[in-house]
């Protein structure tokens, strides 16, 4: 996807829960912005409702959820359901963080299309968004 097309894509990078590990979220937010996407970062310690609200307000195409605290199984489905309930049905959900493989299925069933674990390159994430972000 060219940079001029990417700037039509709004990406919300969110830190749900109490987890304070924001190195990854910030690096990815910056890389996506440098790649040409429009990026909004929620900041830390967001409740699921706050993330849903931000996604709706900004009318985003992509929500990237960063969780390194182990709370992903509780937080991710709640956020995805919340966004879908507002009628935003085509949002691409990505999850990144310390996610044990045995939880991948649960997250994918909940609606997360990709789960990225440590060692993922920024380029892989950019390409996933290019490929999977909804065209509106």
């Amino acid at each position, binding site marked *: 996807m060219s940079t001029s097309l990417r700037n039509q894509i709004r990406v919300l990078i969110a830190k749900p829960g109490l987890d304070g590990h924001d190195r990854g979220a910030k690096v990815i937010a910056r*890389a996506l*912005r440098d790649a040409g996407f429009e990026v909004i970062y929620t900041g830390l310690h967001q409740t699921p409702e706050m993330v849903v609200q931000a996604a709706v307000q900004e009318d985003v195409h992509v929500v990237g959820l960063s969780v390194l605290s182990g709370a992903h199984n509780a937080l991710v489905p709640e956020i995805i359901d919340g966004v879908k309930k507002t009628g935003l049905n085509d949002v691409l959900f990505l999850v990144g963080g310390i996610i044990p*493989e045995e939880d991948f299925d649960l997250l994918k069933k909940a609606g997360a299309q990709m789960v990225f674990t440590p060692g993922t390159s920024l380029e892989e994430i950019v390409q996933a968004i290019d490929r999977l972000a909804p065209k509106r």
Partner: protein
Amino acid sequence: MSESKNSKLRAEWEKRREAVEKKVPPRNVRFTTLSDMEVPLLGTPDDLEKIGFDYERDLGFPGEYPYTRGVQHNMYRGKLWTMRQFAGFSSPEETNKRFKLLLEQGQTGLSTAFDMPTLMGYDCDSPKGKGEVGKCGVSVSSLQDMEDLFKGIPLGEVTTSMTINGPAIVILAMYYAMAEKQGIPKEKVRGTLQNDILKEYIAQKEWLFPIAPAVKLVIDTIEYGTQHYPNWNTVSISGYHIREAGATAVQELAFTLADGMAYVEESIKRGMPVDEFAPRLSFFFDVHNDFFEEIAKFRAARRIWARMMKDRYKAKSQKSWMLRTHAQTAGVSLTAQQPVNNVVRVAVQALAGVLGGVNSLHTNSMDETLALPTDESVLVALRTQQILAEESGIANYADPLGGSYLVEALTNKVEAEALEYIKKIDEMGGMVKAVENGYPQAEIANSAYHFQRQLEKKEKVMVGVNRYQSEEKKRAMETLYIDRSVEKRQSDKLAALRAKRDNVAVNKCLAQLKTDAEANKNLMPPIIEAVKAYATLQEVCDTLRGFYGEYREDGKF
């Protein structure tokens, strides 16, 4: 000044080297440390002449000012470093079992990891902590949990470290209350509270209150500890999280020391003589992959702190000058890919820590980038330290690399660059101001991004990640899985506590706490009273949040 013999010899050799390099060109254009600091191929006597190296002034002897060579006269011959593995998960009872396992296996100190709700001052039944109870550490909501956590562990004999910051004063109150109930004399209560709130705003991001009242609470614990618990380390000034968030070695060193200086200055403002509280300040650094950079960092840290305490803060006691430090191997260096390789990384990092003269060490387990470590992997990590201590022979020596032309030059370089940062922070009006302005936060974010870019371009290598990848069979490793039943069990336990405690007494204590907060008194005494009445962590924190408000960070990136 005429050219010295050494510099002449060096210059001649450089010419011969250049000639050879025409045939065998260097592998890279730049040779840098992990932190991207450019480094020389070798050191020679000429390097020491250039930096005006003076043995007595710059190194001295182990156990003596400026402590470049370590804080003990006989270093590890007298007492090995403390092997202190950070542990905590699930319920207090589960963590208590892990503590006992580690002690049985020869660990010499305890170190407690708390879960996210506890770190943020919420009880286990708060909706804010949904899904997080017991995940990253142990859940502690009341004095009852604290008692269960340390049940059967002789607190008068084992030193305990507790990694908590935002609500540190409440957890410390619980610890003091528990020790008192066990009948341990106050001077025998030994251990360390992390309690370094500045680095929370900078890096770890588990905060409760705005910066000024949060720092006030830290100074309350320093003041109270100095008066009542003479052997408790009230603050562990921590670079670990700063480094893990992406800082370079120099940034880690500079920001950590600047945080320490802020606590010293605030304590002096409170009216405490520097030599009364400074001996109880301890430090905590990361020990990362770049072997010599790390060794230089530890040596420079001790030298800068000693000079700072003596010259700037006029400390007279040697104990105030000494930078005693714990170190932990670098969590961020661990890879989920080919995780057994992590054992090797940890060993190399631990070796750097010991050669750097640390006083206490945590070695990470190979599976920590996947989940909390299993019993088995924790033991490998502990055994790594035991092998270094008792097989490798390195514990025979104090500062064995001291005097190396290269290591001395690197130590000076790291020191000079850190002092540059400290100067900049001074010009901003000190670390509290710098943090309020987001200065260290932005510097760290820039370094983190720079490093990630270097990884992508393969300018920096992570074996198994951006080089030497191999197809592995999935789920190569058994990991520890914390299920959500602990949330329910802990919540039921807390509900039962609330039903059986004297709620009138609890409310009275909380009201007293509010009154004392309004009067700007030291809050340690009313918090101790409140937790003794089994007020919960969140009840105490909410009382303080009601008065001080909460800290919020914007979504800058």
